[in-house]
């Protein structure tokens, strides 16, 4: 029950007036930005990260950030449902099904089941996080550099082979990100690499610039390029906002099942929220008495995937907090938030900054409750944000993105880099490249390199070290399977069709 005691201490810290205020500002800002079309939780966090820079104490900033994270997720699902513009792939399914409901005049219940489902899933998953995190952290203290290297390789292969539709595109995106992350002074030798002669590149490239550039600027360019060809239609929320008895009956099981998919898969170092949402959708369709409704606005198809998405978002914090291993773009940005205060997530964080970690976890509960209370009654206000004329909306996003980056560093070079990365993001969107592997590669790549080199140094250059540790050996074999498996599977299936 030691964990419980620690959590109670954390809760006591989180419910001080000051921290409650931070959490409230966080969820409000997070929802407001997350509600903007095409902006997912990762982008919300990246855009608002500079806002938390100067708050003074790391505790308050991180609590605000937890609110932004959860708020961004809530806001994102509102837009997915009413506008069918999912900010990231894990909210694609609820956009598909929820938008159909909104078109049929059932936008209110769709929003309600998403919000309550997220609350249920978020609460259960945060409790699970509390208990899983401590045991993983205890275990992780014994990991050597070779184990960390293998964990990261595992995260790479699953991120590239499972996100998006092409392993090739995922790999190219990952390697691009890794190279971006390798720029600047090499930590082990002190030598500068890939700086193209710019002194500003010696410190490497800030993840906020990459995330804001690829997501926010890239999205703005992408939307600008197609503004003449595409019409967006905002579905008005008609009829009752509340769920009927029937809706409740059809929703509560999908919420729980979605949570069961979301948390464990999110907590694996393979991670990601995309797979559990798809699994949840497929399961609900299979179990439903009227599967023909799916694709035409079935409430189970919103309830399940939304719950899975939120549970996975809490699950992702397990590898992040205990191993320092971000497995989604949002997690990578949260890692950056820790780093700006000189904190390195990992097993030792639970020892050195226990109060901080626990107040962060406790404020996740707080944020969840706040969002449930705030979100449904205020949905009308959020929807009004969507009626800002498109030119002003995107111009505003662009200006906000650039000043966020500039204020953090005061560097003109960073602004030019932001534009260049925006162009890259635009090209990636046009050719259907997944963006998450770039962010993961940027953050994890250099770490993987350091662990790899350290493991070799400790063992006098013997590559066998990676197979001497059972954990590392297993993970490396699994990684190869994750990469080769889908290709072999496709070949086998192709042969069956051919002969």
């Amino acid at each position, binding site marked *: 029950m030691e964990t419980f005691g620690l959590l109670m201490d954390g809760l006591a810290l989180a419910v001080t007036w000051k921290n409650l205020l931070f959490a409230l500002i966080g969820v409000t800002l997070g929802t407001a930005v997350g509600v903007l079309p095409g902006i997912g939780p990762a982008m919300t966090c990246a855009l608002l990260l500079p806002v938390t820079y100067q708050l003074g104490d790391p505790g308050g900033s991180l609590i605000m950030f937890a609110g932004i994270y959860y708020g961004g997720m809530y806001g994102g699902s509102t837009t997915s449902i009413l506008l069918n513009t999912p900010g990231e792939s894990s909210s694609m399914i609820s956009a598909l099904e929820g938008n159909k409901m909104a078109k049929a005049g059932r936008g209110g219940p769709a929003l309600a089941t998403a919000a309550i489902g997220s609350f249920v899933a978020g609460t259960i998953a945060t409790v699970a996080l509390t208990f899983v995190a401590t045991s993983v952290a205890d275990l992780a203290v014994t990991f050597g550099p070779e184990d960390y290297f293998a964990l990261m390789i595992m995260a790479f292969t699953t991120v590239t082979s499972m996100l998006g539709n092409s392993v090739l595109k995922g*790999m190219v995106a990952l390697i691009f990100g890794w190279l971006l992350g390798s720029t600047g002074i090499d930590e082990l030798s002190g030598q*500068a690499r890939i700086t193209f002669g710019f002194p500003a590149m010696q410190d490497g490239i800030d993840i906020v610039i990459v995330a804001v550039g690829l997501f926010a600027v890239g999205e703005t360019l992408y939307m*600008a390029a197609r503004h003449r060809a595409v019409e967006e239609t905002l579905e008005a929320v008609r009829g009752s906002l509340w769920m009927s008895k029937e809706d409740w009956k059809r929703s509560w099981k999908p919420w729980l099942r979605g949570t069961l998919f979301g948390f464990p898969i999110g907590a694996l170092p393979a991670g990601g929220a995309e797979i559990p949402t798809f699994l949840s959708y497929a399961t609900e369709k299979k179990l439903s008495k009227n599967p023909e409704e799916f694709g035409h606005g079935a409430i189970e198809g919103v309830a399940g995937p939304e719950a899975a998405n939120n549970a996975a978002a809490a699950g992702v914090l397990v590898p992040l907090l205990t191993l320092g291993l971000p497995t989604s773009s949002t997690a990578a940005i949260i890692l950056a938030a820790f780093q700006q205060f000189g904190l390195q997530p990992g097993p030792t964080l639970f020892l050195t900054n226990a109060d901080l970690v626990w107040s962060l976890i406790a404020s996740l509960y707080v944020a969840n409750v706040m969002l449930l209370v705030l979100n449904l009654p205020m949905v009308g206000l959020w929807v009004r944000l969507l009626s800002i004329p498109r*030119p002003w909306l995107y111009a505003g996003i662009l*200006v906000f993105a*650039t000043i966020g980056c500039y204020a953090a560093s005061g560097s003109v070079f960073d602004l030019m880099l932001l534009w260049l990365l925006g162009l890259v993001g635009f090209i990636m969107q046009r*050719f259907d490249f997944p963006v998450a592997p770039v962010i993961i590669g940027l953050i994890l790549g250099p770490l993987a390199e350091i662990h790899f080199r350290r493991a070799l140094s400790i063992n006098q250059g013997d590559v066998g070290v990676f197979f001497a540790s059972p954990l590392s050996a297993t993970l490396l074999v699994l990684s190869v399977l994750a990469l080769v498996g889908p290709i072999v599977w496709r070949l086998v299936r192709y042969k069956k069709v051919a002969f």
Partner: protein
Amino acid sequence: MSLAHGKDAAPDWGGVGLGVGIVVLALACLTQVIGVQATSSYDYIGPRNIPMVLIVLLGIGGGLIALAGWRGELREQNEEEREINRKTAWDSVLLVSVGMVGMALTIQPAGFIPAATFCFVLAARAFGSRKLLKDLVAGLVLTIITFFAFTKLLNLVLPAGPLDGII
């Protein structure tokens, strides 16, 4: 996505260009890594080795993307998406770019408010707005509010330009 798909599809020249661009990027990175000194003898893997591996992989990836583009297999597109791509507003991409680069170049001499308003107006125009005066007012209101929010509430530094000391 089946393997047979796209055998007789027309080459996707954009995709070929992208692949070639990635190869060029890999070569450019190569020039930046090749001169890095391998360090002390007890470092079995130096600062050069892993970037080299990455660059080679990136080059191969670029080649494969060019190939996929040439075979018309890079993007799965339906007719609607092709139509949207044909109608791409390149002038808008240019406008946003000019706005961003212009802001980067003027933010220090002119100050944040005019530079960001310039970017705002151009971006609004890129999205089809033709009401210059209204955009200008909206841009000014937004940038003035953010300027004070950032500098007074969040204690972040934004350049005031010629107005330094007055605001």
